Structures are given as C-alpha cells and as structure tokens.
C-alpha cells in the first residue's frame, strides 16, 4: 500500500484548491463523423462554455493536445468561435498522457492571473482519420520497432502487460474482469460505443490482437471531441454547475521513460508504469491517501493499465488488482467504482479527455443512471506507459 516518501516531499502547489472545472462539453462519439475535426473541436468547446454558463467573450485561454498532427490548433478554435482576445494558448503534442497535465496548465494559468477562463479540448477523427493504434511516426526508436513488425501501441502495452502478469501473477481472467466490469457501466452510458454485456467466455474467445491482448482488451477508436472549462473556484461558484475543485495534481516522466512515446527499452521495470512514479507526488499534493478516493476514472487504452494503475497508486496492494476487479469492487456500488462511463474501452478512445470529463461529471453529481452515490472525491489518470499525469477532483 501507499506510504509517504519523505525524500520527495514537496509543497502543495498553490493552484490546488483555488481552481475548478466549471463545465464539460461533448460532441457525438461515432465511427465516422460527417464533420471536420475543426468543427468537432469548436462544437465541444462551445458546449463546455454553455454548460458553465459563460459567454464566448469570457474565454481568454485555450489548450489543446494532439498526436501525429491529428487535431487543430487553439488559434483555429479561437478563430471559428470568434474569441476576441486570447491571453494564453498552448498546443501540446503528447497524446493520452496529456489530459490531467493540460488541465493542470489551465489551472496554473488561471491561478497566476495569465488567463481567467481556459478551455481544454481534445478533438480527433480517430476512427475514420488517423488511427493511432496502427500509425507509424518518425521517432528515434522507430528504427528498432517498425522493421521487425513491432510497430503499434497494442503491442507495446502488451509487452508491459506480459511482464506485469509474470511479476504479479495477474491472469488472463484478471484482464477480462476489467473489460467485463466496464461493459456493465457502459450499458448505462448512451455516449458509449460498446454497450453490449460481455461474458468471460466471450472475452476468452475474442480474437487475439497480440497475446496477452484480445480485441476486447483494446480501446475502441472513435471520431469525436470533448472539452472542459477551467476557471477560478471563486468564479466557478457563481456559474451554473457545481464546481469540480482541482484539489490534487501530478505529472511524472519516470526515470528511463524512453526516447519517444513508444519506447520501452530504458524503462527499468515493465511491471510498473508512470502512475507508480507519480503516486507519492499526487497524494501529497492533495493531502489525502488512496483510501480517501470515492471514485476513480483510470486511463484505459487497454485493460491492463487499469490493473497497473490500481496498484501503482496504492489503491490496492501489490498483486491484488485482479482479484479486486474480479470480486466486483470496481462496480458502481463497489468499494471503489472505476471507469463509470465504461472507460476508453467502451465509451471510446478520446485519449483520456473523456475520462477526465467523467470525473468532473461524477463529483458534480450529474452522472444520471451511472452516478456513484457518494462521489465527493474523484481520481483521474492520464497515460499508461512511462510518463503521465493524474488529478484529484473534489466536490465544491
């Protein structure tokens, strides 16, 4: 279990407890959107502004993230939304490690007075356009991966998952339990693409992508967009929705994180990921421990990262994640509801922006049929390899 590490003791960053997410916005999630990426981005941002009860004139900051040049720049959204004057813009090219980090950046900009109301969005046509799962990109270690047929994210994560299974004793049934549990949640989420129930037999019989991953261990790629609106807690209290207070946040580029976002060679221990590295910093920043989280939205491009993250952040003990999920503790009425929207596995691969937005929705109490009863404190994670970010939201 998690223990404080005095060597890494740091102060609680000053933006925590002083900033909040005040609104969320979504487009439809689909396998083939009729709209451009720009329109998806703009529609999600407009929806987030309206959800918060702000006007476009109030927006003075925009942050986006992309991968493989699959999105549009902040200035494009500012132009189409007719935002009069941005004082802060940041285009990040880091994929799914970004959501909590991007919201951290928005909160930092707000807290130091660089901007007042900052949109953070992710928009892509990840199904009908650039499919990250199979995309090849120029990178220092591409030469060691693509030539030998080792050139896709499912393969890299499978390589980590195999070692996790070797070291912790996790089984194929443990991975399956994650996929099965999240389908139950997705059935209550109209936005989710995979909503049909999944049995263990169906899981085990699903085609292999790369052992130990079946097709149903892998996220479903989608077209769509999601945005959130970050502002000061003081401003958020005067707006339409209950504030989701940003109360903890951490980033880690773990030691030996790699030469590019697909490189594992230098990563010291394949049975761990970035969340093992950032756990101490995250809990210190929030002033709570893992036992004080009511709901967890964990980045799940594949099933295995849920197990890695449960153990890495100390939400369960080493080697206990599989039985924790199999025993139903991640259900909506379980000890720690996990991925209440069905996760990226079922809702769709919006590279974790939707995972973060679901955390906001839960602490705001707006989860509808999938609302967790007591959701005062929610953990959100972003990323599943050597670097990543995480955030704690508290009901305001």
């Amino acid at each position, binding site marked *: 279990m998690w223990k404080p590490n005095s060597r890494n003791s740091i102060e609680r960053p000053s933006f925590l407890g002083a900033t909040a997410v005040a609104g969320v916005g979504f487009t439809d999630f689909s396998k083939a959107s009729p709209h451009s990426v720009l329109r998806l981005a703009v529609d999600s941002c407009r929806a987030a502004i309206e959800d918060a009860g702000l006007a476009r004139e109030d927006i003075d900051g925009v942050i986006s993230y992309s991968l493989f040049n699959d999105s549009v720049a902040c200035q494009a959204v500012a132009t189409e939304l007719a935002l009069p004057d941005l004082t802060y813009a940041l285009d990040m090219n880091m994929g799914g490690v970004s959501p909590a980090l991007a919201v951290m950046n928005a909160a930092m900009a707000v807290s130091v007075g660089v901007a007042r109301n900052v949109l953070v969005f992710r928009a892509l046509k990840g199904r009908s356009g650039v499919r990250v799962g199979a995309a090849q990109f120029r990178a220092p270690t591409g030469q060691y991966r693509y*030539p030998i047929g*080792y*050139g896709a994210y499912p393969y890299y994560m499978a390589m980590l998952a195999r070692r996790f299974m070797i070291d912790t004793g996790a089984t194929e049934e443990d991975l399956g339990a994650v996929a099965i549990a999240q389908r139950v949640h997705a059935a209550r989420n109209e936005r989710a693409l995979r909503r049909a129930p999944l049995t263990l037999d169906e899981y085990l019989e699903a085609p292999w*992508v790369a052992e130990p991953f079946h097709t149903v261990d892998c996220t479903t790629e989608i077209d769509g967009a999601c945005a959130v609106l970050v502002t000061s807690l003081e401003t958020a209290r005067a707006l339409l929705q209950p504030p989701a207070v940003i109360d903890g946040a951490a980033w880690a580029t773990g030691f030996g994180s790699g030469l590019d976002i697909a490189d594992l060679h230098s990563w010291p221990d394949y049975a761990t990921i970035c969340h093992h590295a950032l756990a101490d910093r995250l809990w210190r920043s929030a002033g709570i421990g893992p036992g004080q989280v009511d709901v967890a939205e964990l980045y799940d491009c594949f099933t295995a990262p849920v197990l890695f993250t449960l153990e890495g952040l100390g939400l369960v003990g080493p080697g206990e994640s599989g039985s924790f999920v199999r025993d139903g503790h991640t259900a909506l009425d379980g000890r720690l509801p996990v991925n209440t929207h069905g996760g990226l596995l079922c809702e769709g691969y919006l590279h974790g922006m939707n995972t973060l937005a679901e955390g906001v929705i839960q602490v705001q109490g707006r989860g509808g049929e999938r609302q967790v009863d007591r959701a005062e404190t929610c953990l959100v994670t972003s990323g599943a390899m050597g670097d990543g970010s995480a955030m704690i939201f508290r009901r305001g």
Partner: protein
Amino acid sequence: MPGHLGCHGRRLGDDLPARLMIESANITGHAPDIDEDSVPFWEGLAEGRLVVARCGACGRLSFPPTASCPSCGKPATTPHIVSGQGSVYSWIRVHAALDPAFANDVPYVILTVSLDEDPDARVTGRLLNDPGTPLEAGAVVRLAPYRVAEDIVLPGFTLNTPAEEAR
C-alpha cells in the same frame, strides 16, 4: 571485420564469435531509419554481432545506443559488442498485423531480451523459432540476425532447444 566499422575502429568484444546469419526469404521486414547514434548497431548486426553502448564513466551497458549514458548522464558511451546471449524479459505474440506488410507472418513473437552481460540492458527482436506455446520468463535466447533483403539485416533471436540446454 572491425575495419568495416570505419571510424569506430576496434571495439571491445571484437574477439567474440559472430552469430550465424539467418538468410531467410520467409520473414517480412522493413529497412530501418538509421541515425547517427545507431550506425554501430546496424553495422555490427550486418556482421552478425550485437553492438550496444557502454558508458566509460559508470560501466553500464545500454540500448538503444545514445551518446550519453541513460544511467548516469555522462557523455561517455562507446560502441560495445556483447555476446548476444540473453534471456526473455517479456514477450508478445502478434496475431493481428496492424502493419499490413506483416500479414503473412502472423502469428509471430516479439521478444524483449535482457542481455547476459547486464540484465538491465534490453534489446527487442523477433523470435525465429516460436514454439507456439507460452514462453517462460528467463528462457535462454541467443542473437540470430536475419536478412530480409541484400542490405537489410534485422535483430532476431532463437530460443535454445532442450538439446542445447543440456549441453
């Protein structure tokens, strides 16, 4: 042989035997996008040798080769030939060829191999004698470079057979 490496001159380990080159037309492979840091690795592989980086300051081995040591950060690495003997650290068996060029190769195994000389240094390669069953962590493997075109040699490994283990 060392002369083939041009400016790198004689390397530590040049006395180690080169590995048998697998001259196979049945394995798919692409040309690597070689950069300044990786020339010794690819030139060595074409000679049947595994060349990693060794830090002159801390002595650690590393892969991929970089000018500075990822263990201590000193700009003190040099190309270093290792035996090519190692053990399975992790593995996957690819069934869905997400790069369609490999459609005729599936299923195939990709290994992450810990080097005998420094188990924390790991190399990735294709397993050329896949038994088709789950692999054991720690299973003994040896370098088996394979040629997919006249000028393209890629990193592969073979699992030691029981007969070899007995010896």
